């Protein structure tokens, strides 16, 4: 492969220039809002900027969807390795997927901006909040349009930073600052894997450009267990050779990045804690930015993955989907339930990638973005509405504070907040995978593909692969169950607040739907949760404009299996086989979803629900504590790490510090001795010499009296002396 041709600079087009504008505008919003004055109305400027971004993105989408990808690239710098100078390129790559992601990111971000204007209006750091939102959006857009892994990694870290800033927005709360730190650190663990993946790909191919990587990967071969890549650069012929397992290691490394960002098992622990951030931020994190970045990265590097990696991805995704759904059951916090459901849904997307259903996974990424953002905004609306009863809280001398996110205090809000209820219901239906809603379409596509995957791989006699679809289907049932539980707890039954307030009648009267500024974004997101937006036939996901239009990708990794011609043949076989399952999956998942709702209505019957629930059982405890992952990590990693640092600190303090201090003291003593010698011996010698010289000088200068007659005397004396000497 001729590297110059692969990495040649590409001219910018109107599309890439506009894309660059979409990238830079949110950064502008960040810069504008860096001051902290409310008079300036930075929130409206930011919203306007995001709206412009959204319009531009829609234009880009219409230009790119179903057309050729637009790629603008320039040579950033050259890296000399040996005698060759490898060009390092950077640029903007807008294909179908990234154009659509741009629309989703800018739309959700815009709606969150609008919503936040009302939601955050009482916050003293209102403007800083909008600055962070701008930075967050900027970073995510950067990931979406970057054309090489290194720039993706840079924006990736920026997303990490801005999520840290936003999760810890109320950093005065200890729990919020801890959650921010946790999110940041856990993400870094995944990022190490990402970096390793980048390094492996660089050392094999000497480029990180995604398009070039695809061609180079397709061109590389596996010979005798060695992974061979040949290329030429300015008439130098070169080849790199490494053991074949490094393909898999590169893939796993890239996947590790996604594990961290997209909260997959075993790094999903940061996401529930991230609920400490303001609710609109949660909507943004869970829908369009941050967690979507991991899945998006997997979609971008999908061609570079081989089947060992895909198997790992499929299993991790399925396990995460199941674990997340299970943990959502026993949560009392309205936002925590949604957080675990996000983990579970991300598990679906990752599983979709793993079973080779690139299109279905990205489809779910898009549909999930809308309904999850809708759910979070609706949850925010519930919380905001409940804050209306704050003045009526019982006050027995000391101020009472209630956790307004606790669902045990809600109930019966259906009549008080009809608008929020409808929004929440629509978005939940989409999440639970009820037909006619968007979630049904995309979830079906993933489940269908997972069955095809299991069937093809199990054909060789290993039924273990059926674990993936089984976990997937179980999660459908559980999703319907926990969402029904949540809706019952929030909106049905009797309101459980009166126990805590003085004049219940007045207080309840004060409970009303949020202002229109918050309702409009919710309504738009709810509309986008309907299946009709994506497909005319609500039962045929393959007929949706998304799956029809998105450009197909092929696995290009060299094939380690002898039984198939290439990885992509295997993948296509899976997709082909899965078509048989389509109707069964539609019917089956619908039945499961409704079954879940019915079970849940039976179990969480509001009539049976008492305010003092009996102590939770074994399963409920596991669920409430998210499989005790936090405790396990505490015991296995955090406490040993703290102990180790404690020991290191003690060694530092007790051995290294005194040693260094002793060294320093010895030095000072030595310096004093040397100083004394200098002053008294060396200086003394020099001074003495000078003094002697001066003495002689004084002596001889006396001879030069300046008086002519004394010179005569001297001359006379010497003459007489001379005479005496001559004579005797």
């Amino acid at each position, binding site marked *: 492969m001729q590297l110059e041709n692969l990495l040649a600079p590409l001219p910018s087009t109107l599309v890439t220039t506009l894309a660059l504008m979409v990238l830079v505008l949110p950064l502008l919003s960040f810069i504008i809002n860096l001051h902290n004055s409310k008079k300036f109305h930075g929130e409206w400027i930011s919203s306007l900027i995001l709206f412009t971004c959204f319009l531009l993105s829609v234009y880009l989408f219409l230009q790119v969807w179903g057309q050729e990808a637009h790629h603008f690239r320039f040579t950033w710098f050259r890296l000399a390795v040996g005698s060759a100078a490898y060009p390092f390129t950077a640029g903007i790559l807008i294909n179908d997927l990234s154009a659509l992601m741009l629309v989703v990111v800018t739309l959700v971000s815009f709606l969150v901006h609008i919503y936040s204007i009302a939601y955050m209006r009482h916050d003293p750091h209102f403007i800083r909040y909008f600055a962070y939102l701008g930075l967050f959006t900027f970073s995510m857009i950067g990931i979406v349009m970057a054309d090489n892994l290194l720039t993706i990694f840079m924006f990736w870290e920026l997303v990490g930073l801005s999520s840290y800033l936003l999760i810890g927005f109320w950093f005065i709360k200890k729990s919020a600052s801890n959650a921010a730190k946790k999110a940041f650190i856990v993400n870094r663990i995944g990022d190490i894997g990402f970096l390793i993946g980048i390094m492996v790909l660089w050392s094999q191919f000497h480029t990180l450009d995604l398009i070039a990587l695809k061609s180079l990967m397709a061109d590389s071969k596996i010979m005798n267990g060695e992974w061979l890549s040949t290329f030429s650069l300015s008439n130098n012929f070169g080849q790199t050779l490494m053991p074949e397992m490094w393909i898999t290691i590169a893939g796993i490394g890239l996947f590790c990045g996604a594990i961290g960002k997209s909260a997959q098992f075993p790094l999903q622990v940061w996401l529930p804690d991230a609920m400490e951030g303001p609710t609109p931020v949660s909507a943004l994190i869970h829908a369009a930015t941050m967690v979507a970045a991991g899945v998006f990265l997997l979609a971008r590097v999908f061609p570079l993955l081989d089947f060992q990696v895909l198997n790992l991805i499929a299993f991790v995704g399925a396990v995460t989907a199941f674990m997340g759904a299970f943990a959502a059951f026993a949560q009392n916090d309205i936002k925590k339930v949604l957080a675990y459901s996000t983990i579970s849904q991300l598990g679906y997307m990752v599983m979709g990638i793993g079973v080779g259903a690139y299109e279905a996974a990205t489809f779910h990424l898009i549909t999930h973005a809308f309904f999850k953002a809708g759910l979070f905004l609706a949850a925010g609306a519930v919380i905001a509405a409940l804050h209306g009863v704050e003045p009526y809280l019982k006050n027995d001398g000391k101020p009472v504070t209630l956790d307004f996110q606790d669902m045990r205090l809600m109930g019966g809000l259906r009549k008080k907040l009809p608008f929020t209820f409808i929004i929440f219901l629509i978005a939940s239906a989409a999440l639970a995978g009820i037909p006619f809603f968007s979630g049904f379409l995309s979830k079906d596509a993933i489940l269908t593909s997972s069955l095809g995957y299991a069937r093809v791989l199990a054909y060789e006699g290993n039924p273990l692969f059926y674990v993936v679809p089984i976990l997937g289907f179980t999660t459908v049932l559980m999703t319907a169950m926990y969402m029904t539980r949540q809706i019952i707890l929030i909106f049905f039954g009797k309101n459980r607040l009166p126990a805590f307030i003085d004049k219940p009648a007045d207080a309840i009267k004060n409970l009303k739907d949020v202002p229109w500024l918050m309702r409009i974004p919710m309504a738009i997101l709810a509309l986008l949760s309907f299946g009709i937006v994506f497909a005319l036939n609500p039962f045929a996901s393959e007929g949706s404009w998304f799956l029809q239009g998105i450009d197909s990708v092929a696995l290009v990794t060299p094939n380690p299996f002898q039984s198939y011609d290439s990885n992509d043949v295997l993948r296509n076989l899976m997709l082909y086989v899965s078509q048989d399952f389509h109707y069964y999956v539609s019917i089956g998942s619908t039945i499961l979803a409704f079954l879940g709702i019915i079970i849940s209505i039976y179990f969480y019957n509001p009539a049976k629900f008492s305010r003092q629930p009996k102590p939770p059982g074994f399963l409920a405890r596991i669920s409430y504590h998210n499989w005790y992952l936090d405790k396990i990590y505490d015991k296995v990693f955090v406490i040993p790490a703290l102990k180790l640092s404690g020991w290191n600190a003690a060694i530092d303090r007790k051995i290294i510090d005194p040693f260094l201090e002793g060294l320093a003291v010895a030095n000072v003593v030595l310096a004093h001795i040397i100083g004394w010698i200098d002053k008294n011996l060396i200086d003394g010698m020099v001074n003495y010499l000078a003094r002697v010289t001066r003495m002689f000088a004084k002596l001889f200068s006396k001879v030069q*009296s300046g008086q002519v007659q004394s010179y*005569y005397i001297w001359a006379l004396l010497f003459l007489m002396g001379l005479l005496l000497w001559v004579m005797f």
Partner: protein
Amino acid sequence: MITITHYLIISALLFSIGIAVALTKKNAIMVLIGIELVFNAANINLVAFSRYDQTMLQGQVFALFIIVVAAAETAVALAIILKLYHHYRSTELDKINQLKG
């Protein structure tokens, strides 16, 4: 009979007086006069000893030379003293000691 010894005694006296004047007088001109006496003491010696050189009379010739040179030298010395006087408004050698080390 006037022997050479008389000349030498006169010469020695003159020399001693000249030295004494040159060393003790404050005035630069007096010192110059003392030096002239020393010159003439030497001249007397030269002339006295030229008695033993009847043919060439080298001593007398040399004395003449010295008289001429001494005249020139005195002229120069007087000029210097004049300049000194202009500069210091004094001819007292005690006060002119700027070359003191």
